[in-house]
C-alpha cells in the first residue's frame, strides 16, 4: 500500500532494478555524493585530485579516523557518545612511544625485532583498560557518557603530556613506523594476491548466503542481480588495488632501497607502492567490526539496546556490562588508531589526535549513524571518514583559505544529517 501511495511516482523499472539488487539506497546516495565530490575536486585541481598518488595519500590519511569511527558507531548506536577518543589516542601514543624508545631498548636492546609488537600490545591493553574504565563509570555508576568522556578529553590529553613531560618522543622503532602508511606497503604482487583473495572471499560469501537462503526456502535474488553484484564488488576491489599499485615509488627512493640491500637499480625498472599496511589494518578492522555487528550476539545486543534499552533489559541483556564492552572496544580501536597516527608521523607529539573526537563523530554521523541510537553501519562510518578527509584535502589542493575549509566542513556535517533525516522520513525507516 505504502508503495503505491508514494507521491510523484518514480520510474517503476528503476525501482524494481534497485529492489532486485537489494542495495542499501542510503549507501548508494553516499557513494554518489562521494563520487560527485571527487569529480568536482578533480575538475578544480586540473586532474590532480584523482591521480593514484593523491588517492593513495587520501587513503592513508583517512585510516586513523576511520578505525576509530567504526568503534564510534557502536558507541552512538547504544545512545552514548565518546568525546575522549582524540585524547585517549594521545595517551596511548605516548605510552607506545615511551615503551619502544625508553623501556624496551633497555630490556631487549635497541632495534630488537619484537619491540614494535610489544609496544602495540602495551598500547592496546592501555586503550582497552581506559575505555572499559570509562564504560564502567557510564554503565554502573550511571554518569552520562557525555560527562565521563568530556572529563576524559581533559584528563587523557594531559596524562599524555605528563607521561612525556611535554616532549616529542622519537624517532620511533623502524618496524613500528611501517604501519603508518607510505613507509610500509605490500608491493604490487602481494597487493594483487590480496585483491584476488578478497574477490574470491566475497564471491564465496555471496554463493554461501544464497545457498543457505534457498535451503530454508526463502526467496532469493534473481541470478542476473547476483551476477551484477558480484561484478561490481570484484571490479571495485581489483580497481582499488590497481590504483594503489599504479602509484610508483619515486626513482630516488627505489635506488636507496636497492642500495640498502647491496644491489643496483636496473635501468627502467619501476615499482608501485601497493596497499599500505595501515589500509590493510583498516580493512581487517572493518571486516571484524562488521562481523561483530551483524553476526554475533554482542552486536545484536548493541543494536537492540540502542533501539529500545528497556526491551533489551527485559530480554535479559546485561546492558550495563554491554556499555563497558562497547567503550572497551572503542578504547582498543583508539589504541590501534594511535599506533597508525604515531607511526605516520614517526614521533609521538603532544598534540597528536587533537580534535580527532570531532572528526570521528562527524564521520560516523555522516555515515548514517543516528544519534538517537539503534541505527548505523561500519562501512557507512568508513565512507564518512573518507568523505571528510576528501573534503579537507581537496579544498587544501584547490587552495581554499583555511578558515573557509572548516566553515565548509561544519556546514557539510549539518547538511548531511539534515539530508539523512529527510531520507528517513520519506522512506519511513
Amino acid at each position, binding site marked *: 500500500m505504502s508503495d503505491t501511495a508514494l507521491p510523484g511516482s518514480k520510474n517503476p523499472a528503476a525501482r524494481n532494478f534497485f529492489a532486485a539488487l537489494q542495495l542499501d539506497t542510503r549507501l548508494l546516495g553516499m557513494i554518489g555524493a562521494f563520487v560527485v565530490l571527487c569529480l568536482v575536486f578533480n575538475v578544480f585541481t586540473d586532474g590532480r585530485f584523482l591521480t593514484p598518488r593523491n588517492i593513495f595519500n587520501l587513503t592513508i590519511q583517512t585510516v586513523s579516523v576511520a578505525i576509530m569511527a567504526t568503534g564510534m558507531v557502536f558507541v552512538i548506536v547504544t545512545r552514548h557518545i565518546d568525546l575522549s577518543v582524540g585524547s585517549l589516542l594521545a595517551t596511548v601514543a605516548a605510552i607506545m612511544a615511551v615503551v619502544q624508545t625508553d623501556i624496551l631498548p633497555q630490556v631487549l636492546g635497541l632495534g630488537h625485532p619484537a619491540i614494535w609488537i610489544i609496544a602495540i600490545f602495551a598500547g592496546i591493553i592501555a586503550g582497552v583498560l581506559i575505555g572499559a574504565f570509562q564504560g564502567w563509570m557510564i554503565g554502573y555508576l550511571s554518569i552520562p557518557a557525555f560527562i565521563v568522556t568530556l572529563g576524559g578529553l581533559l584528563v587523557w590529553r594531559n596524562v599524555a603530556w605528563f607521561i612525556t613531560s611535554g616532549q616529542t618522543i622519537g624517532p620511533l622503532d623502524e618496524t613500528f613506523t611501517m604501519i603508518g602508511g607510505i613507509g610500509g606497503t605490500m608491493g604490487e604482487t602481494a597487493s594483487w594476491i590480496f585483491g584476488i583473495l578478497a574477490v574470491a572471499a566475497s564471491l564465496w560469501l555471496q554463493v554461501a548466503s544464497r545457498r*543457505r*537462503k534457498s535451503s*530454508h*526456502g*526463502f526467496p532469493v535474488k534473481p541470478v542476473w542481480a547476483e551476477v551484477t553484484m558480484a561484478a561490481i564488488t570484484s571490479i571495485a576491489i581489483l580497481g582499488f588495488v590497481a590504483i594503489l599499485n599504479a602509484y610508483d615509488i619515486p626513482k630516488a627512493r627505489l635506488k636507496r632501497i636497492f642500495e640498502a640491500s647491496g644491489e643496483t637499480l636496473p635501468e627502467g625498472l619501476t615499482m608501485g607502492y601497493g596497499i599500505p599496511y595501515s589500509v590493510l589494518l583498516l580493512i581487517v578492522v572493518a571486516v571484524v567490526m562488521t*562481523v561483530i555487528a*551483524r*553476526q*554475533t*550476539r554482542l*552486536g*545484536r*545486543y548493541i*543494536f*537492540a*539496546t*540502542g*533501539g*529500545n534499552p*528497556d*526491551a*533489551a*533489559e*527485559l*530480554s*535479559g*541483556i546485561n546492558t550495563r556490562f554491554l556499555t563497558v564492552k562497547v567503550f572497551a572496544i572503542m578504547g582498543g580501536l583508539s589504541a590501534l588508531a594511535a599506533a597508525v597516527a604515531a607511526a605516520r608521523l614517526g614521533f609521538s607529539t603532544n598534540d597528536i589526535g587533537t580534535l580527532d573526537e570531532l572528526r570521528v563523530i562527524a564521520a560516523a554521523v555522516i555515515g548514517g549513524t543516528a544519534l538517537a541510537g*539503534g*541505527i548505523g553501519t561500519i562501512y557507512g562510518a568508513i565512507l564518512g571518514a573518507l568523505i571528510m578527509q576528501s573534503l579537507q584535502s581537496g579544498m587544501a589542493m584547490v587552495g581554499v583559505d583555511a578558515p573557509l575549509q572548516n566553515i565548509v566542513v561544519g556546514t557539510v556535517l549539518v547538511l548531511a544529517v539534515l539530508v539523512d533525516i529527510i531520507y528517513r522520513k520519506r522512506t*519511513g*525507516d
Partner: protein
Amino acid sequence: MSTPLVEMKDMCISFGGVRAVDHVTVDLFPGEVVGLLGHNGAGKSTLIKILSGAYKADSGEIRINGEEVHIHSPRDARAQNIETIYQTLALADNLDAASNLFLGRELTSPLGFVDDDKMEAETRKIMGRLNPNFKKFHAPVKALSGGQRQSVAIARAVYFNAKILIMDEPTAALGVHETQMVAELIQELKKQGLGIFLISHDIHDVFQLCDRLAVMKNGQLVGTAKTTDVTDDDVLGMIILGKCPPGATPGPGALVDDTVVG
C-alpha cells in the same frame, strides 16, 4: 485443587516510601486465566513485574509448582518458563521480527555466530501458525502494525514454551479484529495447560477471557473471585470503592466497614 502453578504470598515492594504493592497474595493454576484489575497506579503492573524479574520484591515468597523460587532478573524468570508480554510492547523497534523473537536467546551456528537464516526460518514457521497474514520478515518492527507487533511478542512467549504467561494489557493497542485474534490465542494456550495472568482495564475482556479475577486498590488486594460468581457491577465496586461483594473472597484491601454493614 492441585498445587498452584504460581503462588505469590505476602508480596511487598515500596518505592521511596510509597507502598506500591502491600501484602498481596495471588495464585494461578495450570490452564487458568486470572485477570488482574484495578485503577492506574493500583499496583497490578508492579506486582507482575516482580514475577517477571523486572523488580525485586522487598518481602514475600514466590512458589512455582509448590517450590520456592528466587527471581532477581528477567533471566531468572525465563528460566522458570515465565514469559511476559508488556503493555509497551518490549520490542527493539530497529530490529526485524526474528531478531526480536530470539532477543537474548539467539540461535547460533556451531562457531558461535548468530544464525539469522535459521532464526528467520523458525520465525516464519511460528508466525505461520499464529498469524498467517504476517509477511514482513525483513522490515524493522517499527514498520509493523500494532497487531503484527503484538503477534511477534506473543510468538516469543509461545516459541519458548512458556508455562506461565503474563500479559500486560495485551489488547490495548489493537483493533477489533486483532483483539479477537489475541482472544482466540489465549483460549488455545489455556488448552495447552498454560497459566496466564492477564492485566486489563476492560471488564468486558476480563469476563470473556478469565476464569478468576483479582482486584487491587492502592497497592492492596481488594479480593479475588471466580468470574461466574460476580457481576460487572460487583467488579466495578471492587475497583472503585474497594467494596468486596458476597461472591468474592476479601483481601486485606477490602473496605471493612461495608462488609460489616452489608
